[in-house]
């Protein structure tokens, strides 16, 4: 499967960065993404994600729209984008690229949101070592 990562502006009053916005023509967004900065396409294996996170497990199976779609959409703020990518990488490799405290904090928060509990633990340990 694949994930479209829709990145919104962090702030409603942020400058609209039109040139960064990538929207595939076949992408039907039900929600009104007013401040879409860009859309990234990330290829993932739903089983691996589901095994590492209750959120993804439910996302792919609970009987709503995403359960039957080949591609699902996650919507995050710009400041969260790198952290989410890093978490997805963590799920596959067991490692994070983020090193600074603020980066790791963001990772921790996003991991909490998407219920990647093993990453939360890993992240907390890294933070303690700083």
């Amino acid at each position, binding site marked *: 499967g694949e994930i479209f990562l829709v990145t919104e502006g962090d702030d409603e009053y942020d400058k609209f960065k039109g040139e960064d916005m990538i929207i595939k023509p076949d992408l039907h967004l*039900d929600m009104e993404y007013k401040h879409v900065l860009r859309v990234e396409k990330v290829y993932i294996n739903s089983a691996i994600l589901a095994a590492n996170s209750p959120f993804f497990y*439910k996302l792919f199976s609970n009987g709503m729209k995403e359960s039957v779609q080949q591609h699902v*959409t996650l919507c995050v703020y710009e400041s969260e984008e790198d952290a989410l990518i890093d978490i997805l990488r963590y799920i596959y490799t067991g490692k994070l690229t983020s090193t600074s405290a603020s980066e790791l904090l963001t990772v921790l928060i996003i991991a909490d949101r998407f219920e990647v509990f093993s990453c939360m633990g890993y992240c907390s340990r890294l933070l303690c070592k700083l």
Partner: protein
Amino acid sequence: MSGMQKKKTSKIEPFKQRVENDPNYSEKAWKVLEHAIHEIYNHNASGLSFEELYRNAYHMVLHKFGEKLYGGLVSTLTFHLLKIAKSIEAAQGPFFLEEINRKWDEHNKALQMIRDILMYMDRTYVPSAGKTTVYELGLNLWRDIIIHSSKIQIRLLDTLLDLIHRERTCEVINRGLMRNVIKMLSDLGSSVYQEDFEKQFLNASSNFYAGESQEFIESCDCGEYLKRAERRLNEEVERVSHYLNPSTEKRITKVVEKEMIENHMQRLVHMENSGLVIMLINDKFEDLRRIYNLFCRVPSGLTSIADVMISYLRQTGKKLVTDPDKLKDPVEFVQLLLDERDKHDEIITQAFNNDKTFQNALNSSFEYFINLNSRSPEFISLFIDDKLRKGLKGVSEEDVENVLDKVMMLFRYLQEKDVFEKYYKQHLAKRLLSGKTVSEDAERSLIVKLKTECGYQFTSKLEGMFTDMKTSEDTMQGFYASQFGDVGDGPVLSVHVLTTGSWPTQPTTACNLPTEILCVCEKFRAYYLGTHTGRRLSWQTSMGTADLKATFGNGHKHELNVSTYQMCVLMLFNTSERLTYREIEQATEITPADLKRCLQSLACVRGKNVLRKDPMSRDIAEYDTFYFNDRFSSKFFKVKIGTVAAQRESEPEKQETRQKVEEDRKPQIEAAIVRIMKSRRVLDHNNIVTEVTKQLQSRFLSNPAVIKKRIESLIEREFLERDKTDRKLYRYLA
């Protein structure tokens, strides 16, 4: 975060939570979620985006709108459940349960989806705010709004109980639906299942079975009733496995057990013409097994069976041992006892699971009635005697053991084991001396059994008898090999040398032996005393046998196997044709009782009368005349002339044996008293009596009056003395 320690190189800035700038944000987000919940209940969930809903709920919780979210959820769920309640209440008749089931199913599915999208709230807000989780909240609301609705609660219970009642009265019901609805009650919590269903179910069942058992017991016999009760029990267990909670099984079976078995136990076992006694009499194994299996489920069920069995066994046993008809033949009498025991033993192993309660009941009953007849020890010994004489011929070794083991069971029941020993000794002596024992192995095996049962003391004398037999064999060989053994044409003598004390004491009734015999006897005496100095020999003519060669009319030759007494009598006819009773008595000097017996067997038994008697009558009178029966004939060459010896003892003999037994008990009682007093030094009367009785009960049941006499005798002989102040206390004098 602020408490975190800073290190040199890294800089940690406090995390700035993004605050939603839109003041209506929470309202908007909730609207999205509320709409989604409606859609879920309307089966339109597949059009919703999980990610969007989760994100909204996440942000609401993150931005401290958790309470709003939770409150909104409660009211939305309530709204939907009230609607559902209406639709269930409106359902008619049989559709009522189906509607509940359908709506429950939908609610459950919806609840799962709602729980998923509110997962973040469940994980963070719910525990910190002390609320119940989304799913549990959904169940609680269902319980309060649907199940406890005044219009549904009673109706649901009545419907369920009615369906179960119908199934009990053989209607087919929708078990799947029952299972689902009852599963729903269990899912709502064990208290809901118990309070809203199980309690009333058990009550209704109790009433139902109270009525049904009353009806059954009026119309069925015991066996049929038990069959039905068993079927009902199985049905209830099956019902639980099909659609009730497993925890109900033991409660409902208890109800059935109480109503159908416990409440009617006495009436069932005592039922006329079909109760327990009839089952026992007719070996109704299946019914007995059933009654056991059912009764063992209720308190004191087995004792009530055992009580009836004991009283039945005692009654029939008492009848058996006191029936004069049955007492005519001791062997048959004991065989009847054995059969009776086998029969009930079989019942206990086959139907009563070999239960100890019943084994004890059987044993105690036998112990009770066997000892009601004081001749039981004698008869048991006679039975063994019969078996060892002839009964065991051609029977395998295993079967012999089997029979002996069974007889030992009866022996164990005897209270007067010393009386048995006395008789056993007599019977064994006869068997050994007449060479009638069939198998020495069987004899020995029985001795071993007695030994394990009663100890070395009990059998030492019996074993001595076997030793004597063996030594005698060697002695005879020695005799014939020696110079004394050359007796020429004279009769062949075989002597058993019996140790005094080991053998039952017989009054030495000497009789006049024929001179031929006397001559050989003297030679043997000379030989024996020559090899064993300091011994004394006396002849026990009452126990010997002899083989005689006789020639009758027409030159018919026969070998007669007779007793020593009979031989003495017959030898007289070598010299005279006719002899009167008086003449015979004078010539032989046999005691009148023995002589009469011996003459009776020689002259009055048809086909074996080598003598003839004048007048021809059954009894021997003082003035009868006897003459040789020249016309005697038999198809056998060897003719055995039995003695008309009453196998069982006659009344005076019995009295005599009894007296001997009592006499023998005296020293044993005294020995026990001395043993006890030696260790206790001082003891009061009652305690001595109890202890003596206990010590001796493996051999006999001692009579307190006899014990008292023995104590007095010991005091006289200064083994004991009475305490000076307390006359009830005895003191041991060393």
